[in-house]
Structures are given as C-alpha cells and as structure tokens.
C-alpha cells in the first residue's frame, strides 16, 4: 500500500461532507416548497376521501328518476335504500340516472388514491425483487432483462387494457394490470443501483467478513436505494391514478356502478353538450390530484436524488 496521500484525504473529506448532508435529508425535504404544496394538497384529498360520509354526501350508488340531469347547485330528491325520499342539494349536479355527482366524485377520491398507492407499492415490490435478483444473480440477469425489454416494447396502456380484457375489471385486476407495465422501469432502476452500490467499499468489507448474500442485499444495498425508489414510486402513483381514470373512461376499467372519476366522466360523455359538469368536476379533481402527486415527486427528486434531478 502507498502512503496516504493528499488525494485520499480529499476523498475522505468529501465523503464525510456527504454524510452530513444525508443526515439532514429530511430537513431538506421539509423545506422544499414543491413537497410542501404537493403534500398539503394530497393530505387534503386523503382527508376528503376518509371523511366523505360526513361531508353532506349520499350513498354514491343511489339514484332517483326525478332528479336526472340536474345542474350544479339544484335542489332535488333522492330515494334511499330504505325507500325513503329525502330532499338533497346536488352541489355538482346529477347524471342521467339521477345520481349525485358530488357524492360520486368524493367517494371516487377513495378509489383513485387507493389505486394509485397500491399500484406504486405493487410495482415497487416486484421491481425491487426482480432488480435485486438481476443485479446479484448473473445467470438470471440476461433472461430477466430481455423479458423486461419485451414488456417495455409494448405501450403501457395497451398492456393494461389487454390484461383487464383477460381478467375482466375489478379493483384487484385493475391495480395489477396498471402495475405490471411499470415493473420493468423499477427493475432497471434497482438493477443499475445494485450494480453501482455492490462496488462500494462497505459492501466489499461486508463480503470479506463473510456476510450472507441475502443480508448484504437487504441490509446494505436496499437501504441505499430508498431515495430514488421513493421518487420513482411517487411518479408511478400519479400514473396509476391517471391510467385507472383512462380505463374507466374508456369503459374497460372498473364496473360502471363503482364511483370513480373515470366512470363519472364516461357516463357524462353522452350529454356533454348540455351538461358539461359531469366531465368538468371529476376532471378537475383528477387533474389536481395527479398534479399534486407529480409536484410532490418533483420536490422529492430535487431534494433526495440530485443526480437524477440534473438529468431532466
């Protein structure tokens, strides 16, 4: 070994500076305006979704033939499941079956957030598993990455549409169908991270101490992937919300009686000329939600993953 020279000390000091920075990662995240704005809007939406029953809504599947195609703010009546007829103000109007758009949009928030988050978690879970396997098990790498290349060559929406056609639309099948085309991107990300991290000195040290491979994967490598994966997960969540709405809108997603933004808009298409509110209100909710998630993702990327932020 050579005597320690100045360059080594320099490298050491840069590394310790990096450690100080990562310790305050949470601080930087909280200080970011993108994270604050995106996070607050999302928190508000989560609150709306959870509190939907107490916000002046009715059961979103209820309809009343006498209250069809009401304009926003109109008074009308609605028949409850017990057969009672109650007065109800249709804040966002009603659709052509006489269902309350406001209730359907608010309950639709639940579906959208659930689909978005589940899609992200599912795609991350499978992507991490495939990425770790691919980065660590060389014999599996070639085959696995070729399959991922193949999946990526098919436009994501087409995969989702085909899968839903195969299994017919339900909450579970829609989530799985949206998550599958996102797995290759996560796999590639994890694989590239694994390939660079496994060359780090601390991994080398762990290997030379005889640490089992599985422990190295989960205790040494995975924790260092968390920041980019969090960012990636946020973008998948936004995409999942968007694709679910598209599937429902096209009529190939969740069954039409389930209140989702896409279903409300699909129903509103027919009378769009006269009653644009059926498309307008769910459309605004959808756009604001996806925007909030994207802004949150941008903020997380800029603070947690500066290397990726520089790329675009």
């Amino acid at each position: 070994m050579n005597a320690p020279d100045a360059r080594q000390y320099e490298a050491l000091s840069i590394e310790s500076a990096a450690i100080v920075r990562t310790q305050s990662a949470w601080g930087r995240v909280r200080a970011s305006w993108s994270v604050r704005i995106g996070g607050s809007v999302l928190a508000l939406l989560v609150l709306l979704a959870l509190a939907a029953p107490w916000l002046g809504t009715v059961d979103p599947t209820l309809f009343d033939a006498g209250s069809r195609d009401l304009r926003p703010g109109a008074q009308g009546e609605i028949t409850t499941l017990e057969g009672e007829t109650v007065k109800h103000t249709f804040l966002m109007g009603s659709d052509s079956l006489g269902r309350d758009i406001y209730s359907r949009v608010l309950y639709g928030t639940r579906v959208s957030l659930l689909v978005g988050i589940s899609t992200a978690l599912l795609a991350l879970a499978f992507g991490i598993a495939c990425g770790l396997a691919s980065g660590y098990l060389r014999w599996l790498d070639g085959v696995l990455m070729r399959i991922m290349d193949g999946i990526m060559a098919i436009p994501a929406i087409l995969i989702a549409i085909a899968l839903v056609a195969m299994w017919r639309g339900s909450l579970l099948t829609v989530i799985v169908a949206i998550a599958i085309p996102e797995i290759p991107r996560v796999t590639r990300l994890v694989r590239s991270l694994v390939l660079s991290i496994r060359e780090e000195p601390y991994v080398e040290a762990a290997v030379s101490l005889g640490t089992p491979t599985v422990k190295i994967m989960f205790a040494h490598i995975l924790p260092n992937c968390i920041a980019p994966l969090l960012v990636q997960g946020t973008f998948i969540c936004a995409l999942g919300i968007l694709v679910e709405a598209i599937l429902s809108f096209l009529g190939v997603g969740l069954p039409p009686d389930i209140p989702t933004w896409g279903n409300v808009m699909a129903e509103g298409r027919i009378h769009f000329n006269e009653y644009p509110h059926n498309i307008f209100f769910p459309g605004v909710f959808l756009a604001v939600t996806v925007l909030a998630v994207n802004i949150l993702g941008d903020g997380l990327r800029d603070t947690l993953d500066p290397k990726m932020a520089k790329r675009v």
Partner: protein
Amino acid sequence: MLNFLARRVAATIPVMLIVAILVFLITRLTPGDPAAILAGDAAGTDQIARIRANLGLDQSIVTQFGIWLGKALTGDLGESFYYKAKVVSLIGQRLEPTLSLAALTIVIAVLAAVPLGVLAAWRFGGWLDRALMGFSVLGFSVPVFVLAYILIWVISLKLGLLPVQGYQRIADGALPWLRHLILPSVTLSVVYIALIARVTRASVLEALGEDYIRTARAKGLPEARVLVGHALVNAAVPIVTVIGIGIALLIGGVVVTESVYAIPGLGRLTVDAVLARDFPTIQGVILFFSFVYVLINLLVDLSYVFFDPRIRY
C-alpha cells in the same frame, strides 16, 4: 456501418420475440377454452372446433406458439369473429386516421417544443423558462381526455370554429381532413410538447456551457446561429431519443383521443375490440403497435449518425 446495422437489427429480434410470446399468452392465460375465447361469445360449436384444429390446440403449447408465430410472420394475424374479417385487413382499414393523427401530432409537438426548449435554456431562470417548466408539469398531469373536452367545449361548441368530432379521409380533400384533425392533434401533442421541451431545455442548457459556444460567440456569430447551429445541433441526440421513446406515450394517447373525437382509427379499434372481448383483434393491434414502436426506435438509433458525425458505427 453495415456491420452495425446488421447487429442493431438483430438486437430487435429477441425483443420482438418476447413481445410475440407475451401477446400469444393473452389468450392462453385467460380463464377458459382458448378456442372459445378466440371465437367470441356468439360462436357455434363447429366454429370452435374449426379454430381448435386450426391452432393445433391438441398439441403442446410450444408447437401452438410455433404455429401462431409462423402465421403472424406471414401476415396472418387470425380472424375477428366480431367484425367478421381478417385482423390484418381490419388494421389496414384503420391505419390512415391513426397515421394522420400521429404524424400531425408529432409535427405540432416538435415545432412547438424545440423552439420553446431552446429559448428556455437560452434565458435559463427567466420567465419563459419558469413558465415552460410549470406548463410541462401541468401537461403531464392533465389527462388527455379532460383536455379534449375542454378544447371541444371552448373551440367547437362555444366558438364554433372547428368540427366537434369525426374524421374525413384525406382523399376527400385536404382541408376538411385538416379541420377534423387539428383539435385531436393539439390535444394529443400537449403531453408530447411537455416531454420534448423539457429534454430540449436540459440538453441545450448543457451544450451552452461548452467551450465551443464561447468560441462561437467570441468570433462574433449572431446569437441565433450560436443557438441553432451550435447548441441545438449538439443537443440533438437526446431530443431525437426522447421523440422515439415518446411514441409509446403517443400510442397510449391515440387510444384515448380517437375514442373522444370518434376517429375510426386503430385506437378506437383497440377499445372496441376489448369491449367486445375480440381477442384476435386485441392481439393483432398490440403486436402491430409494438412492432411500430420498436421499428421507430431502431430508426432513431440509426439517425444518431446523421445528427452527430462523431458517432461512427
């Protein structure tokens, strides 16, 4: 060069093979008898029996795939019992509207996004730059069909400037064709503009920091020539790459846009086929779209030589 061409073309073969396997599996992973699924809901027993014999369903799955792939390679993508027609001829009939829509969208997107990206990079941190970055986040977030309805509402219904829906064949006159396509293309181009403008901005920004830009300015070139002749040309490779990758986004958008604007193209065919559970058509369309996507990205790779003479294969 020829050597590279051969290798690059050969590299797409395993990708297309995987795509073919995945598309083939669509009917095999669907619960139920593949022959009955392919025949559709209205088929009789003799029809199903004929399909079963045709596909070799009594043989092993590998042989079945071989038979199916052999037919696909010779241009036989099966028969749609819903449309009572060959899938290949269905795709042929629906090609023109989709091609028109996609081409016009790419033209609009590139013409808008590249200048915007260059200007944003030129005045980095200025109002245009910030406006463009804001617009691009918005462009990624507003769903294409919501945007479509806003445009229909304002431009067609309130102002009466353009037709609401439908498609006119280009053979019936270029003007009606264009009038019907403007709104769908603009709608579809928004996401694409957001994507291309971002990448253009980032890569021009990087090029502007190079020494040759300083040299060009020092020798007194007009700023426009510095930006276009030096910065943009050197930033071209990532821009062309993202246009190619964005084709996947475009295809997804086509499916939605054609549905909203009632354009009888391939996207509409896809949705109708799924709603009718017409599996031969679903398989054919996905195979076709993926093939186009892989082909375009192959062309993009080859175009690097043209944009960057330093790249020699």
